[in-house]
């Protein structure tokens, strides 16, 4: 039996719905097809952007990539499954230190990244088992303890992990095919900043692809159900504990990969790089971008990377001295956060969606009217 189609959303005129239907008919119908196509388009955009920008911007993009990976993982945990974590910075530290140790043992980069992911996921599983029993402020407190405590291990085991000064991470060798490909593409010499930016962004796109698959399917639906009403979810046969731990493990795996990318980009893993400021920065990025949205996580991490230097530049332009200009950035960041909370609680993505919807309806009504 065919499902009746009378459920067209209120407020959208039939013409807009028709245009949208015609548009979706041309798209692949399978989830894999849709997401693979999006991945491909995104990759082309990434190549264009990285080829059209210089080494300085390239390294900023590399930074954005690891923030984006961690923020995407966090938005799944906090936005989709409703568990807060103030400890994702510490999980990134696990990934970065694992990367350092494995690269020092001359293990190939890809294996190292997967290793960092696996080790961090395992730590995430342990934390997740505890987290599954905690709610709200208690969960925040427990993960905060993780953020404060875990980097301290590096100081305690200073012989292995380099103590306060941190552990140097060997830079991965740029393979010959990469510089050949770049030369073929844009007739430029491939810089090491560019290589790292490519590693970061290809990793980010793969992570986003996999997370988008999860969110579009059964796993994401069950995560959201547990977030919205745990008693009703339980009565539908969903084991709350397992589902929450799974979300934590997936999120931690992302933090681990983010830590690995951070490690090879920064070339150093030090306790001072993984303080509570990093964890809070990720959380605010996810909230500003739009909780529970992968695009939002991306927007949030872009803001995290590009807003501070932009504000500092504006500061010096209007005649502040360097110290004052540098202090302007956290102030503006805080102001942005407060404004988003007040004016657009669904984040940047929520605002974008509203705008697109208006545009879509506006265009089709003008055409028909």
């Amino acid at each position, binding site marked *: 039996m065919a499902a009746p189609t009378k*459920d067209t959303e209120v407020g959208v005129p039939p013409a807009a719905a028709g245009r949208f239907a015609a548009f979706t008919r041309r798209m692949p119908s*399978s989830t894999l097809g849709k997401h693979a196509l999006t991945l491909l388009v995104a990759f082309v955009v990434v190549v264009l952007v990285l080829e059209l920008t210089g080494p300085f911007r390239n390294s900023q993009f590399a930074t954005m990539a690891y923030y984006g990976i961690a923020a995407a993982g966090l938005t799944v945990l906090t936005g989709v499954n409703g568990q807060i974590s103030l400890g994702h910075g510490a999980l990134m530290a696990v990934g970065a230190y694992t990367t350092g140790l494995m690269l020092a043992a001359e293990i190939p980069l890809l294996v190292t990244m997967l290793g960092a992911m696996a080790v961090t996921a395992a730590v995430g599983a342990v934390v997740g088992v505890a987290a599954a029993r905690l709610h709200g402020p208690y969960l925040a407190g427990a993960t905060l303890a993780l953020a404060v405590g875990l980097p301290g291990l590096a100081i305690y085991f200073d012989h292995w992990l380099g103590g306060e000064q941190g552990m140097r991470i060997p830079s991965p060798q740029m393979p010959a095919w990469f510089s050949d490909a770049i030369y073929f593409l844009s007739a430029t010499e491939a810089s090491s900043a560019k290589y790292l930016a490519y590693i970061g962004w290809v990793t980010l796109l793969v992570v986003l692809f996999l997370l988008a698959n999860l969110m579009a399917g*059964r796993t994401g639906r069950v995560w959201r159900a547990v977030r919205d009403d745990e*008693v009703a979810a339980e009565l*539908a046969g*969903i084991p709350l504990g397992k589902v929450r731990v799974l979300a934590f493990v997936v999120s931690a795996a992302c933090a681990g990969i983010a830590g690995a990318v951070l490690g090879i980009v920064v070339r150093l893993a030090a306790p001072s790089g993984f303080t509570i400021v990093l964890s809070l920065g990720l959380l605010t990025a996810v909230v500003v971008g739009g909780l529970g949205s992968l695009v939002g996580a991306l927007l949030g991490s872009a803001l995290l990377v590009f807003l501070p230097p932009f504000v500092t530049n504006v500061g010096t332009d209007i005649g502040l001295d360097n110290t004052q200009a540098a202090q302007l950035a956290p102030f503006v960041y805080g102001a942005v956060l407060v404004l988003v909370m007040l004016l657009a609680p669904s984040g940047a993505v929520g605002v974008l969606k509203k705008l697109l919807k208006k545009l879509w309806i506006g265009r089709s009504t003008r055409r028909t009217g």
Partner: protein
Amino acid sequence: MSDTQPAPSVFGVADVSVRFGGLVALDAVSFAVGHGKVHGVIGPNGAGKTTLFNVCCGFVRPDAGTVLRHGRPVSPRPDELAGMGIARTLQGVGLFRGLSVVENVMVGADRHRKAGFGSTLLALPRSDRDERALRERAMAALAELGADGYAARLPGSLPYPVQKRVALARALASEPDLLLLDEPASGLGHDEMTELGALIRSLTARMSVVLVEHHMDLVMSVCDKITVLDFGKVVADGTPDEVRDDPAVIDAYLGEEATHA
């Protein structure tokens, strides 16, 4: 599994007692639901109806007594009920407010899923097939309750009676053989209640129903048997006609009215 003898009961509790501190919430309560029957549990406020339901669902462990499924003692956790073919609706609606109507019902159908985490992660075709199958199940359950027109809406945007129908569709989507309804008529108008009564009767072809309800008209018209609780004790147990004229029942309800007056 088919019993050769007429099955004594598909579900029941035997001598269940629950104490909260010094308060006796349930005192040696027993009832049994026959195959394809509608069993009502009624009683004044505070009689222990909700506690009894929570014992049935594993939210409250009884201090004494057992829950019986097909005559065998069980003590399921709440998340194991669906797998045993038991579905329960909640007081109020308890819908997932961030999920569309059809997604809500798909969660109800979740025990019929086949694809695992790996195939969802990689968006393999079997995950898409599984999603389509769940969606069809959900749409069928919604259609049965006349709510399929709201499939794409968020529950919060719908009138309360429609939300209650969606919640019922979510319970039916798991295809249970026992349905526990917790005050399904609360907040419904007279006509909607008549419809609900007819619906509950029509479900008995596929499942047994336990009904906790305040509305006497509904209970009397749809139930095959009724258990009356007062202060945690069973004061009457029988057909609607037997229960209606039972002095203990009249006493329990009149007593309540007297204290309310």
